[in-house]
């Protein structure tokens, strides 16, 4: 299926990185409808978010006119000319008075490749600011940093998702894909039948429950009928991985031939994990020593060197959103390497990308230190190549900027930007220590938000620009597999709405920049392809036309790199070597230090955060869908009955969670699926139940990833003080 008719489009779901294939029907006079279609990642499946996605297109508060904060202090409708002139004039004045870095840009992992590329180009070539970063920093940065260091390249899954079905074991670290991308569970069916699904998660999440009913007995160690669930204390995943590495290396379970032929650094790694024997790891992580041993043995038995069909090691945000996120992913890659998995058909390591275009978003120039094609902004060859494509001098390009948390923290301060352009991100809900972020945003001279609906962030902006969304636009996305796919238009956008491609071209012109901006997505892609040529994420062999032709012919699709127009793409990477100087993967020794915010007497409980099936990210889209709200309308606090008893917090009671940064309130929900020393909150909500008001903005020193996933809190029943 492909372009179909004028009113039917073969496209993809607007939400997560699984990018389920769907057909959008927008026949005149009929309600817009979507249906799942056969596509390798979703295999005809679709979750409730996908099914209800048309409701976002017709959200009652859809933005259809630019808004400018007027003298009254309210956002008032204005013409595009007035809005764009105001933005351009203010940006020019601020840059004249305070320098180029007085303007910052914040992008998103939901933007198409074309928009992400144009945004990066606008920042570097027009504004010439170094201050650009994006919400993917909160998503994939730890996995990206680790994969680049260890394997020489980061592509979320360096293999097709469907490959999982042939493996004997899959180790899922900090991923709850049964809720975050439900149709992906289909790919685990075979490995579950073989008893080989291993899930590491402090919660008995929907995904952890896929390991099956637990084996009874005093020494169950998380063994289920379809796999193993290890339930570590939050923030100790790295210790668990070091324990698994210890067992594999000390019990002689490693793939010695592979290690000798394809890696370096074994000796240092071996020495570093000798100190992480299972009993020590058990004392830190709360995972029984024998459960660690059995898990390591299960994984080793499934590895090709022991005659198994293969093993995949996969990481998610649960282990990555940590001050030691990069180290944790490095340890996961080390485990995959010592088992001889990476760069072998049927085995491997991968990170499960979260946002719809989290992969493409980080390849084409939104990241503070990168140019299109996953090139480093400090590499002079890369600068020369990209500058030539943009028609500017390499020296006109800024140097590396600062990662998201620092960029946000410095807004409105003498070190930071005074104006911020936000695209596809709802910072007020999604950034850590959100109250502080709100304060920083309010201190700006100019906040410009491009969005489809009045998100919490848009509501405090000075200028709001209404933009097109998924079914109203053409473009490409790069899915969690590194597959470049087409987003297609099924209906015209509402009157008054513009594409960001047009907005950026207009602003460039008004700012007097000689740099040219195409506004047709196919043309922008053609330029992106040229800019990426020779880079790590090389799209130069692709075009909208080639992607369409392949899909029309029911072709296999394209996984980057695709360095030539006759190149078939690269479904599986590293088969012939690693893109490092010597072609070998690096084993890099790492140490466990634990979370930044550790439990203590005035904050003795761990708080972890995550998603629910019915909502997506900050909820700006999904909270506007009645059917999803009917299922999950508000935030809640999951806690164990034992903790509820101790604190006097009954099921359903309002509970306040307090951390060093602030407080949040939501209803208590008792469950036996969480450790009694830990509580869970979903992060899709605004207001007093917005959990990022309490999360920690401490960041990983390598990736800049904030520590969303664990902080120390105190809990109390609301109204308790009044009674006492």
């Amino acid at each position, binding site marked *: 299926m492909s372009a179909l008719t004028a009113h039917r489009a073969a496209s993809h779901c607007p939400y997560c990185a699984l990018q389920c294939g769907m057909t959008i029907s927008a026949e005149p006079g009929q309600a817009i409808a979507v249906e799942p279609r056969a596509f390798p990642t979703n295999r*005809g*499946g*679709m*979750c*409730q978010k996908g*099914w209800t996605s048309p409701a976002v297109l017709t959200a009652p508060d859809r933005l259809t006119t630019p808004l400018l904060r007027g003298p009254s202090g309210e956002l008032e409708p204005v013409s595009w000319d007035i809005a764009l002139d105001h933005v351009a004039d203010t940006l020019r004045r601020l840059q004249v008075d305070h320098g180029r870095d007085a303007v910052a840009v914040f992008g998103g992992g939901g933007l198409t490749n074309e928009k992400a590329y144009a945004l990066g180009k606008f920042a570097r070539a027009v504004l010439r600011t170094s201050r650009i970063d994006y919400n993917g920093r909160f998503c994939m940065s730890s996995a990206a940093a680790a994969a680049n260091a260890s394997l020489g390249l980061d592509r979320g899954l360096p293999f097709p998702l469907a490959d999982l079905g042939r493996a004997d074991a899959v180790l899922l670290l900090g991923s709850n894909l*049964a809720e975050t991308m*439900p*149709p992906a*569970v289909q790919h685990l069916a075979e490995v579950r039948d073989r008893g080989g699904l291993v899930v590491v998660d402090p919660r*008995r999440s*929907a995904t952890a429950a896929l390991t099956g*009913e*637990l084996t009874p007995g*005093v*020494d*169950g*160690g*998380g063994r289920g009928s379809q796999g193993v669930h290890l339930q570590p*204390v939050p923030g100790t995943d790295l*210790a668990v991985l070091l324990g698994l590495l210890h067992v594999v290396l*000390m*019990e*002689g379970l490693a793939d010695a031939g592979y290690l000798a032929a394809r890696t370096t650094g074994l000796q240092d790694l*071996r*020495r570093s994990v*000798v*100190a992480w*024997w299972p*009993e*020590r790891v*058990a*004392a*830190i992580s*709360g*995972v*029984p*020593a*024998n459960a660690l041993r059995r898990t390591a043995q299960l994984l080793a038995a499934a590895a090709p060197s022991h005659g198994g069909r293969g093993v995949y090691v996969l990481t998610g945000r649960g282990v990555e959103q940590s*001050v030691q996120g990069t180290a944790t992913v490095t340890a996961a890659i080390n485990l995959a390497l010592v088992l001889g998995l990476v760069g072998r058909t049927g085995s491997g390591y991968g990170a499960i990308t979260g946002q719809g275009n989290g992969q493409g978003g980080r390849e084409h120039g939104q990241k503070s230190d990168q140019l299109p094609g996953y090139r480093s902004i400090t590499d002079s060859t890369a600068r020369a190549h990209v500058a030539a494509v943009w028609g500017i001098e390499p020296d006109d390009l800024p140097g590396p900027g600062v990662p998201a948390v620092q960029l946000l923290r410095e807004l409105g301060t003498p070190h930071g930007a005074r104006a911020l352009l936000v695209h596809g991100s709802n910072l007020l809900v999604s950034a850590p220590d959100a109250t502080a972020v709100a304060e920083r945003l309010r201190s700006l001279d100019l906040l410009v938000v491009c969005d489809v609906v009045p998100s919490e962030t848009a509501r405090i902006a000075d200028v709001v620009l209404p933009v097109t969304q998924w079914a109203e636009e053409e473009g490409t996305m790069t899915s969690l597999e590194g597959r470049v796919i087409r987003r297609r238009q099924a209906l015209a956008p509402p009157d008054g709405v513009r594409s960001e491609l047009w907005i950026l071209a207009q602003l460039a012109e008004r700012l007097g920049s000689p740099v040219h901006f195409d506004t047709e997505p196919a043309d922008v892609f053609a330029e992106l392809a040229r800019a990426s040529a020779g880079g790590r994420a090389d799209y130069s062999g692709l075009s909208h036309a080639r992607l369409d032709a392949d899909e029309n012919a029911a072709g296999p699709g394209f996984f980057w790199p695709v360095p030539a127009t006759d190149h078939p793409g690269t479904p599986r990477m590293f088969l012939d070597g690693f893109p490092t100087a010597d072609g070998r993967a690096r084993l890099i020794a790492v*140490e*466990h*230090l*634990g979370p*930044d915010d*550790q*439990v203590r*007497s005035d904050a*003795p409980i761990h708080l972890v955060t995550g998603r629910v*099936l019915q909502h997506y990210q900050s909820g700006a889209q999904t909270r506007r869908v009645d*059917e999803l709200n009917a299922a999950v309308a508000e935030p809640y606090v999951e806690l*164990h009955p034992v903790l509820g*008893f*101790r604190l006097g917090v009954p099921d359903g009671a309002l509970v306040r969670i307090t951390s060093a940064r602030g407080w949040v309130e939501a209803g208590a929900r008792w469950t*036996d699926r*969480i*450790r*009694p*020393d830990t509580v869970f909150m979903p992060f899709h909500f605004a207001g007093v139940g917005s959990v990022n008001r309490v999360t920690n903005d401490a960041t990983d*020193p390598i990736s800049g990833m904030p520590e969303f996933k664990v902080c120390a809190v105190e809990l109390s029943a609301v109204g308790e003080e009044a009674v006492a």
Partner: protein
Amino acid sequence: MTRLVVIGNGMVGSRFVEEIVARDVDGRFDITVLGAEPYRPYNRVLLSEVVAGKVDMLGLELPQADERASVHLGTEVVAIDRAQRVVQTESSSTPYDLLVLATGAAARIPEVPGLDGDLPAGVHPLRTLDDAREIVAATANASRAVVVGGGVLGVEVTCGLVGRGLEVTLVHGGAGVMDRQLAPGAGLVAEASLARLGVRCWTRARTLGISTRNGRVASVAVQGCPPAGTASDTAAAADLEADLVVLAIGTAPACSVAAAAGLATGRGIRVGADLGTADPAIYAIGDCAEPPEGASGLIAQGWAQARQLATQLTGSESDPARQVRTRPSVAVRLGSVIAAREMRGAASAVPAVSGTDVVKLKAHGLDVVAMGVCGGSPPAPDHRVLRLDDAASGRHVEVVVAQGQLVGATCVGSPDLAADLVATYTRRTPVPGDPSMLFLRPVVPSPAVAAGPEQMPARATVCTCNSVSKGDIADSFHAGARSVAEVARATRATTGCGSCTARVCGLLDWLGANEKENADVTVG
């Protein structure tokens, strides 16, 4: 440059050098390490695992910061000249500005006939890599072993030798095995578990002497309580035939060189809270040291000291590994929690918590974890002690709670619960109002009850991907949906991950049967 000399290249000495090197970014220290053993540093904690054949001896090596430190292996220090600030070995002398003693401890040898002088062939302590190697070599030709000493190491070695197929007798001087950690009730359960593994345990037993034949060990003479089930339950004596004897009666801090240099020693080298001796240029860490809170003999304490001293000597506030703020890792805190607790206890005149750190037995076939207040010492007045004694299934759990916190626990034969208790203990997580809840494993949810369609409430979710309830599916059935595809069209059930398809089929069958029944009733 400050000349820093470290005596000892074991687990603590080498870790200390690593910690210093990580902090000394300006290269202010000129570091020399003198190690008595001829090996690079290795993980001594795992020697019992080598004996058990679970890990390979060659794989025990630990990191050594030898690019920044001048490391001399096989170099025994014979004297410290404090006046001249020089360390002397047999062949050379090394001047120092700062001296750190990390000389560790040596295995204690029973003072009995047959063990005076060089040990006979077949008799080994287990303290060094060489000891482990010799024991492993001896197991090839041995069939009967006696392990002297039933503490943690003795029990680990016992289980390891059993795993190698040897017939093992354990001879322990105390009233019960691991009696430092296990109160009598727990000890009995552990001994019963050992008996099931085929181990014969002598308790309250004295080793009287060792007899040899042709220079090799032949038997061990003991006197004490023989294994349960033997003819005599009271004191008895026996000559236990053995072709391998492992001595595991504990260690003694290696502080003779320090003592000879005039440094104060008690059980170990006496140091203050800053790990310094009375000589401002000399510090001691690890098993050789005796800090105010006492030495636990556990590696966590030594590693915490290594980190503390490195931070102190470099004056570094920042944690080089994190470069954000100083913060001991949980791993280190596992050791320091106890130290801090005891010191604070002493300062505020609250009775100090007895017991040591978290002790985990590494033995295959017997699972013992003990922490904090344990070992049957009389509880303080405000201690609540709860016990779960399930001897028949080899399980015994004891928890000690004070002021809403877990201050001690003993777990025999219950590894999953032990893992939870350790997490609670080390992080001082508040315990439930009724501490008996600690005996349950709350983090393991009960398996879902496989309810048939008739018991399922109408609002029960059948398809989680699309929030479809049993009621929704029944409604679609009554509206005419008869197949999974038709239900999917009406409700979207099964269209997400597809794993509810079987449940939807079951519901359709049930609904169909109901309808037929109702129809039959109507017709009839």
